[in-house]
């Protein structure tokens, strides 16, 4: 089918643009540190963006829900089987990514007959020596590590802008409340930046999505969870409570 190199290149690039196009509406998910751990947050039309994987590992994702679910299950299974056979300490994100998920995603471009995974993930981990690490995993299996936090977003411009903003902000010194509020503001600003770029490039139709925090709080749900170093349980993950979300809402939407 792809005897000629050119055809192969073409197939691959078609595939890339197909996935990108599909992901372009994906809503941003932010992962940032705070003084006691790591925070993952996103605004979503339906819950299902931020999940617990293992005692010290959480993920946030965007893309096709079925694909997010498939990768989430893969991560869950690998983490639990590894934790069972060896020890919870042997379950680390870099191992899960390097030996588990990344090769699976690389299949996106190796088996061209198969429907590709439509996904972008961010992963957060508190290592056994209490360091906080963030990873971003792309649909093609490429992954990067970030110390100061990261973001997944379907729109490249939004992603780049928010990433820069996260790196400029001293999140690791913030309290949880401060970190959540700042992340929400960056989310809002990021959406604006993305839109203005989009408008320059194309005369896009008026966006129906929530544009401001006020709209986002009204129509969608703020989903947020933390991995907390101060948790007394073995599992460091918890979703923020309704009260904590309400407090953030009260502070952000006047």
């Amino acid at each position, binding site marked *: 089918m792809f005897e000629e190199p050119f055809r192969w290149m073409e197939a691959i690039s078609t595939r890339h643009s197909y996935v990108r196009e599909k992901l372009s509406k994906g809503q941003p998910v932010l992962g940032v540190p705070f003084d006691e751990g790591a925070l993952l947050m996103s605004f979503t039309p339906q819950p299902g963006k931020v*999940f*617990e*994987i*293992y005692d010290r590992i959480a993920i946030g994702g965007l893309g096709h829900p079925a694909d997010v*679910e*498939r*990768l*989430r*299950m*893969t991560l*869950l*299974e*690998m983490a*639990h*089987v*590894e*934790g*069972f056979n060896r020890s919870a300490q042997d379950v680390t994100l870099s*191992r*899960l990514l390097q*030996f*588990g998920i990344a*090769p*699976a995603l690389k299949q996106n471009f190796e088996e061209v007959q198969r429907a590709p995974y439509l996904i972008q993930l961010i992963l957060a981990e508190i290592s056994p020596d209490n360091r906080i690490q963030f990873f971003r995993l792309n649909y093609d299996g490429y992954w990067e590590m970030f110390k100061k936090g990261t973001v997944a977003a379907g729109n490249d411009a939004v992603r780049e802008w928010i990433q820069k903003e996260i790196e400029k902000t001293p999140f690791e010194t913030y309290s949880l409340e401060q970190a959540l509020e700042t992340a929400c503001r960056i989310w809002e600003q990021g959406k604006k930046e993305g839109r203005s770029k989009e408008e320059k490039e194309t005369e896009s139709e008026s966006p129906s999505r929530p544009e401001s925090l006020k709209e986002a709080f009204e129509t969608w749900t703020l989903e947020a969870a933390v991995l907390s170093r101060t948790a007394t*349980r073995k*599992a460091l993950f918890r979703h923020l409570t309704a009260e904590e979300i309400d407090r953030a809402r009260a502070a952000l939407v006047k």
Partner: protein
Amino acid sequence: MSEPTENKRTSGDFLEVLERFGYRWQARLEHSGLPRMSDLPQGTTVLAFHFKEGIIVAGDRRATAGNAIMYERCDKVIPIDDYSLMAIAGVPATAFEMARVLSHNFEFFRRSQLQSMSAEGKVRSLSRLLKENVGNALQGLGAVSPIFATFDLRLKKPLIYFYDMLGAEFQIQTHTATGSGSPMIRGILEHEDLWGPRPLAERSRDEAAQLAIRLLQTAAQFDSATGQARPKDKIYPIIALITQNGYQFVPDDEMSGLFERSMSRDR
């Protein structure tokens, strides 16, 4: 670690996942010759009863094989999740493995299904493991008769179950004990509950812990497979409590004082 498999079943059952990854509960013992039962470490006293704030679960620390004492620091009360404990009597290899499977099973279920397993589901999971173990138990290998204690988050109520080695589960309203030393103390528990200063369910944390220590010392008097406390070596019974806030072990530094008080007659 292996490649993710297609057609995943997503019932949240960890044992199923383990089996897909090649784990076999039964296989290891099927072709082995039968050792004498006395070669395997076993023998114990563990007990649980309801007290004012929840459940107390306690156990001695000795592991024996026949008439040999193998280990004096065995922890027979094992945390399964934030709200559940398992107290084990029987062959430790099987019991510890059951505890590990269980704790991964509950966590895997909670994380994959995005809700906690119901208390009833937890109780049944242990029953299922015991049933899968029946073959080994009947061969004289790996028989386990555990106590399972958990806090039911929906009913807001602590629950105690004991099991026979075939997997039948029995809910207990007052108290239970299992292991070779348990016959020595079951009568005392009943006596204390009916005619002691207060019913067990009305006793405070300290009173409950004190009674547990005394019961284990008594069991150790009559049963060689139940270990005495050895304060000089800092070996004390293991005592844990389950309340609405989850489980909590009585810390070592508190145990020494508690043990000393328990060993003198009430005034």
